[in-house]
């Protein structure tokens, strides 16, 4: 399957799952909101141009916003993590040239510890920024802190489960063959 087609299908699936499955979960507590959709941005291929990545982040966040009727709320943090992603990948990549040998960030291409750090930092940034925007409109500082921690915990758990369920096979590509 071509990369473009695969990522387009993923785009639609992530939005639909977030809107019709995860947002429909009956709320356990005010702080616990299961966010998983931004994993799409983390899974985009290494060779996406920076400009394109930022734009995809913006469009992706905005499409979710039109479902929740809060235009901008998810688009802002998505643009941020899409913009910051290449910097993190550069810092955390295991060996020289791994971004040429593998197609996208995953446990096999980056190593478990690096991949976990990469996911954790971007999740924290995304949720922190998102809750910060909510906090500007209402809420207390405790609301901000509690919700950032709770949503990040839930997101990490969901991402972990997703990685286990949908194990992505990463082919090692060489140009020597």
């Amino acid at each position, binding site marked *: 399957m071509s990369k473009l087609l695969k990522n387009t299908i993923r785009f639609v699936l992530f939005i*639909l799952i977030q809107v*019709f499955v995860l*947002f*429909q*979960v*009956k*709320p356990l507590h*005010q702080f616990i*909101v299961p966010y998983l959709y931004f994993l799409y941005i983390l899974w985009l291929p290494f060779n996406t141009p*920076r*400009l394109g990545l*930022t*734009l995809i*982040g*913006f469009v992706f*966040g*905005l499409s979710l*916003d*039109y*479902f*929740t*009727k*809060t*235009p*901008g*709320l998810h*688009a*802002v943090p998505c*643009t*941020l993590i899409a*913009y910051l992603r290449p910097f993190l990948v550069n810092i955390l990549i295991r060996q020289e040239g791994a971004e040429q040998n593998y197609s996208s960030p995953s446990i096999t291409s980056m190593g478990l510890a690096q991949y976990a750090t990469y996911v954790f930092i971007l999740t924290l940034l995304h949720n922190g920024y998102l809750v910060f*925007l*909510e906090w500007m*409109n*209402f*809420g207390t500082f405790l609301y901000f802190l509690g919700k950032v921690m709770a949503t990040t915990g839930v997101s990490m758990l969901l991402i972990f489960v997703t990685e286990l369920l949908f194990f992505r096979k990463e082919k090692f590509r060489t140009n020597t063959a």
Partner: protein
Amino acid sequence: MRNIFLFIRRYFNFLFFLVLQIIALSFLFRYNKFHEAAFMGVANELTGRINTRYSNVEYYFHLKKTNELLAAENEKLLNIQASNFQPADTAAKLIQDTIPYDTLGNKRKYLWRSARVVNNSVALQNNYITLHRGEKQGVTKDMGVIGPMGLVGMVVNTSENFSVVMSMLNRQSSVSAKLLKSGEIGKIQWDGASPSTVTMINIPKSAKVAKGDSVVTSGYSLSFPPDIMIGTVSEVIGEKSSNFYVLHVKPSTDFFSLRYVNVVSNLQSAEQKAVEEAAMKNQ
């Protein structure tokens, strides 16, 4: 000049990122104020259609409950029908119809239209409901939305075939309400904590309030008819620093299983608004 171009080329990624951030932030803050964001009308049509598809499937699983609710509401309506009350003088007959004037000379004030819920959320801080009925079917902004069990919310945005309702479970929602027993007027808001509790404020401590008292709409609002059920008081909290109670109210509407609602339009709201604005101007 050359340096400026070089600067822009060098930091183009960053500048592009900043531009997108600013666009997104302006969407966010503009929408919160006026509930009319860019492309919201077009997006409503599209997301509404997807929501309808989803709701068609999901609807099946709730048919039994929906039927029960509709039957209960029908029973209530049958009981207040005019034919149940027979006056002693059989020559006088009470007739009601849907034209603006009925035979008693009363002018129709509220018109009810049923609508199907195609999307609904309770898990977020600002919850909205999408209805499959829009401008073409006579729904406009600021109309009240009432479910079979009580108050639901208010229409904030419409497109051709869909309308978006700000649910009572929204941080920005504020509804004028009164205690049915004593008639004190207060305000219903939501603190975002739990979808099964809303708060009522501005009730003076002189009011006699007990757990289980009914809270209804006050009739001061242009959108809602008076005496529509909102919920029952579940907890009375007397704030020491002020002279007012904070009441926790359990909404009578079950927001988890909302399938059909009624959109009520106030046919005299334009007139009332005009005369109120004229009075404000004269001051």
